[in-house]
């Protein structure tokens, strides 16, 4: 399933040289433009070299693919930037939807004005990237996200258009990765030396087996052998994307998902943070993992979503409890609310701050709502009356759900949710619940 997005930029992004200071102009485009100001941020970068290096690495991520053919790789999807609340965040996803990267330029990393809060696509073109690679330390570089002076940049109405296939899984990955982040915990913190040593142990080529981050003789290392406190990293070669940043890093923190379904590698370089999240395996995208399914079981009224959308500003910390109190929402629905909001692309997750932040993906809601086929399948099962509750007690629910040629047994007992279908049997719930369990839970909830 693939859609097409047509990026329409007023002018291409570019690094413009001038005697006083260079200006990194990032052209922006959003399908759902909100606000009137054409410029989100205009100001000086404190450490332009680091930002440039991080953005180049981000461009490597968005150009990479670990399970697609070279033909599919040819189309570069532009990163997304969110400016507001003293932070500038650039997000991007690999074509295969298995690697997510984010560059956070924190408060000390810039010195400028946030003329408007918001999230937008930014044009990443080859000449701009080439120019970016020449940015050196101690240079004066201004960053402008969008055009500050419309009149000045107006280019005879000539618009840079680029049509790029926008697979559903790409947007879906962007939404569901936030939930993986929210369920991740910090497990390691390495200094630069340790990080460099660790990356030296990444095997060459594209290993097919899982690798584990273990500690051997006091040193972190990747090993194909699992040990008790090991962190599972499938498709470990994908980590090489951030290797160039290690030599300038202050620290590397490793976060692991509570079920080892993803890992996040956060590099700290002064006031800039680079995060790379890897899916469970190179051939598995974040999109197909069903992370947000549980949160979508109960319908959240559109009015709540509107509330969040209308009253939040970009990068603002999202406090679901406050929202529940303000909007008089039953507190038990709060978890569902964050899940729901991130599933429709309204929230991102900050691992250091341990919380969600508001940012509305610059895509039409219709694109985002068309996601989650498993949920749709579950709804279809309910519509067709294929779900029967056989037994319902305080601690156990047993149901029968019609499958192809057989009726599947679904049992929900305490934390345990089981189904006799092939998907569940194979994955044992690791890749999200199956449509049968989802249908039963939805039936019980409504």
């Amino acid at each position: 399933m693939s859609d097409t997005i047509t990026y329409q930029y007023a002018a291409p992004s570019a690094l413009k040289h001038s005697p006083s200071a260079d200006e990194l102009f990032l052209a922006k485009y959003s399908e759902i433009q909100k606000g009137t100001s054409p410029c989100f941020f205009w100001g000086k970068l404190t450490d332009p070299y680091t930002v440039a290096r991080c953005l180049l690495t981000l461009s490597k991520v968005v150009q990479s693919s670990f399970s697609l053919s070279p033909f599919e790789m040819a189309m570069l999807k532009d990163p997304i930037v969110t400016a507001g609340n003293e932070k500038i965040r650039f997000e991007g996803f690999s074509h295969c939807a298995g690697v997510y990267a984010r560059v956070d330029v924190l408060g000390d990393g810039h010195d400028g004005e946030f003329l408007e809060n918001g999230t937008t696509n930014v044009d990443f073109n080859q000449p701009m990237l080439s120019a970016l690679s020449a940015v050196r330390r101690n240079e004066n570089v201004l960053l402008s996200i969008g055009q500050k002076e419309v009149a000045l940049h107006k280019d005879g109405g000539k618009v840079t258009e680029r049509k790029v296939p926008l697979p559903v899984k790409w947007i879906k990955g962007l939404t569901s990765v936030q939930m993986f982040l929210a369920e991740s915990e910090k497990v390691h913190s390495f200094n630069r030396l340790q990080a460099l040593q660790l990356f030296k142990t990444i095997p060459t080529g594209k290993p097919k087996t899982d690798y584990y981050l273990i500690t051997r003789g006091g040193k972190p290392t990747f090993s194909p052998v699992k040990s008790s406190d090991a962190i599972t990293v499938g498709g470990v070669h994908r980590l090489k994307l951030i290797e160039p940043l290690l030599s300038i890093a202050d620290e590397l923190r490793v976060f692991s998902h509570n079920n080892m379904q993803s890992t996040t590698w956060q590099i700290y370089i002064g006031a800039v943070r680079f995060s790379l999240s890897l899916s469970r395996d190179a051939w598995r995208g974040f999109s197909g993992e069903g992370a947000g399914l549980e949160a979508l079981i109960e319908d959240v009224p559109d009015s709540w979503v509107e509330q969040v959308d209308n009253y939040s500003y970009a990068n603002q910390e999202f406090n679901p409890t406050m929202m529940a109190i303000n909007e008089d929402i039953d507190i038990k629905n709060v978890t569902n609310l964050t899940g729901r909001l991130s599933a429709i692309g309204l929230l991102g997750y900050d691992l250091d701050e341990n919380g969600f932040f508001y940012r509305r993906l610059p895509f039409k809601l219709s694109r985002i709502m068309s996601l989650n086929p498993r949920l749709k399948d579950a709804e279809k099962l309910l519509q067709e009356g294929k779900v029967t509750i056989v037994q319902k007690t305080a601690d156990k629910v047993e149901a029968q759900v019609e499958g192809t040629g057989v009726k599947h047994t679904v049992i929900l007992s305490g934390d345990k949710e089981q189904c006799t279908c092939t998907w569940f049997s194979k994955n044992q719930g690791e890749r999200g619940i199956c449509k049968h369990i989802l249908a039963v839970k939805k039936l019980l909830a409504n």
Partner: protein
Amino acid sequence: MTITEQFTQIVERQKEKELLPFLKTLDSKQKKELTPLIKKLDKYYSAYEEKGSLMGSYSRRGKPEQMQILNIASFVCFNLKDFERTWAWSIFNREVIGEILTWYCPSWLTEYAIKHAEGGFIRSLFDYRWYMELVEKGYVMETDRLTVLALQDFIFFEQSGKNRQYRYVPEALLERDVTLKEHIWLFFKVESGIHNIEEYKQFSDDSKPERWINTFKLYVSQGRIDRSRLLNDSLVAAMGGYNQSLSNWFLKLFVAFEPTKTELQNFTGELLNILNSANSKPVNIALNYLKELAAEPEFPIDAFLEHAPLVLTSETKSAVTSALMILEKLAKVYPDRGEEICIAACQAFIHQDEKIQVRVAKMLQKYGDGASTGISDNLAIYKDNLLLEAKTMLKGFSEQTDNAEVASEEQETLTTSSLTLEPITYPENFDDFVFLASQAFDQNETYHFDMLPAAILKFQDEMTEANIAKLLPAFQRAYKMVTSDWRSGMGYLDDMLAKFFMDYGQLLVKFYPKEGRKLKEMRDSFEKMEAEKKAKSDWYKIKISGIKPWDVFTRSPGYKPHKHILLNAIFMLERKLKLPMLSTPTHEPCYVSSLVLVQRLIMYQEARVTPGDMDFEVAIARCIKMDIEDTLHLANERLKGERRHLISFIFGGEYSPMDSNKSKPAWLVAAMVHNSGTIDKRWFGYSKLTEQYLRAEFTWKSGKQEYFYDKWDHELRKNIKTKGYRSRVEIDFGQKEKQLSGIKKIFAKIMPGQEDIEPSVYDYTQLKFEYITAEHNDIKRLLTINPADRELLLAHIVNKCLKDPDFSGENDKRLIIYTLETLLAFAAPHRDIAHLLIATCMISNDKTVRTYAAELWIQGVSINSINSETIGKIIGTHERAELAPLKRFTDLVLASMYQISAKHNEHLAVMLGACILNMDVPVNNTKKLLDIYAEVLAVNKKNEKPDYELVAKLRDWRKLTEALDKSILKINQLLGVGNAS
């Protein structure tokens, strides 16, 4: 006549002359009207048909003239989408398109040209000259990308003729002013193929290769191209994010101009920026230039120190060395910044390379202040990485190095005395059984194979209609699995288990016809589908069958134990016996607790049922002594006769083989598995196999084996038998079965059956295949049949899949990885063949395999289940035979085996010593091996008695090669022996 009739006639009658006048008259509506006809005719005339009397001789239906007419019409009438689908680009020449463009230019021409050019076919459209004419006339829009793609070919003139040779014509660039003035500079801004455009081109003149570089040189020398802009732009382009070869080409261009020192000084910033490159070639070139500049007063020392980490931590040794050389120069020029420079240099200590470390250490000695806390603090970070030589040299820098061994003591977290055994959760109720059944074919756990029959036996009385319905998804999976195509990851044992389950389904239908109605319908529908497949193709083999006739196509006996156990389960289910299987594991990965085994045996005894032979044997093989007192107490109290004795024997009771023993194979397994080191040889009488085979006491040899292969000879144009050498590890299995004496043979012939000895699990321990198919997906479960006495199977594994340590296929490698993974879960000590397997894996060509082998060694040392000396000896022997590069082993030691704990370091010294001793003459990388040995000896700091045999060997090596001199002297020093040669 309508326009369609008119056009059809033009094509049919090949009226080429009438075409253009006809097309000129068409308006856009008429063109649209004509489009379907052009497509139809094009399809018709493009089709190939058999021509002439010769069979297999095909040619196009349409004549070239007709195709030309259709192509021209396509150009005039089609839109871009339709035109792209044609092969009409052949009409792109001045005569045809040039003429048409004077009266019709499609709006999509530029877009078409760009797409075609991006596909690499610009030359089939136009050359630079014509392109520029088209641009000038306004037919094509000028774009940077089209310009560079057209221009990159322009200095090569393609001559007509058979060989299609080229002439080098740099003067072509002078035809238009704009070419050298503007267009040439686009190469530095837009990605092109300038770097490899002359590849595969043959030239008729004597022009020298690298023609584009020569062209730039030519016009720079003539003053037509600005030299300094060229140098600048090529450096910028080298870092422009283009593909590696193009980036390198720009740097090559820069180098070709031999920039002067003054010029280079202007580009210091760009050169420093190149250090950010991920490719080693540009970094090395930039460092070489920076080296030239380092001593100059204007050299930006601060900027270099900022960039230094990028190169000092690089994987490319030459880059590190160059960066250190620059630092040395800087330290010399700026003595006041010595400390800062030394601290930067310390970053190179990340490389465990003696040369690099010594270089930094020397620099520190020369320019660093011994009392500087800055330097010693930085050294402290790298203390675990410092090699002996550097460590010794840096003694003056306070306390940092002395703590190394303390640190390694701290690291000793791994040493545990044994592996902990995790109990396996059994299905407690029918629902648990249902969920087990539906995942039993997924290999989520190796023991699910055993759990399924055990659970069926347990819940066989609960088969109500509702419960059978719950099992239907599992039955459906079994049927689907058996009748579908083989899927990757599936083993033969999965097929076997599915067929067993299908057989049980048949039993259910038989016992409960009413309740099992749906199950029968399912079976019928699958049988019908199979019959339909068979009806379609005689070749199709119906796949639905039962466990009884099950066999693998290789007829490998290795699968028999599993089959016998499942047959045993079916036997009990047919008789509705509610007894557990004896061999069902109780603890991961496959162990049966001794107490549970006794409890199960009591149940059999009370039910007056004789356990199945194979089930009993496997249970004994898997039996792990737990709750010893309770086990013995229960066995003594409740078990009777032979089984009580057998349990007692397992726990060390003294028994001798007796003719009256009924379960002879079980006794044999007990004797083989549960002995305390020595086996009463009389037990071997319970097997037809020789003692040497039973105990897997095989000899082996390794070396290069001669073989012949077909090699294509281009001159003779035929395959020639060519001699090659391949690495081989060969096990000599010796005599498998005992030879009967002459009299016994006669006796056996006259009275067959009298001397029959029942086969045991050992008779079935085998891997049999010519080419591995799905055996790798079964190996874990095959290994769990006899986890403690696995030598025989390991020998077969080595023989089949590790004959070549470079592996003959991906599946062989998988099988070895799964084997090593399973071995990690076994607690029993490794014996000789396991050592051969582990040691050979340490020098295999696959990093994952090598790392697994290292992990097995680490675990083995921790729980005392491995002999490091034996491992070392085997690797030494392999190296003597040049089986595999020694570098694989030395790299593995440094990356995964060194500095694990003090105990491991001691074992490592033993292993390395044994390896050296068993090598013959020094091979490549022996120096590295000796250096590591010296490092380990130094870290161990143990004044052991030197092995004089080893000392003598090293003395011989010193005579053979001087290169090892330093390393051997170091070892001798550490061993406390004199250095007299």
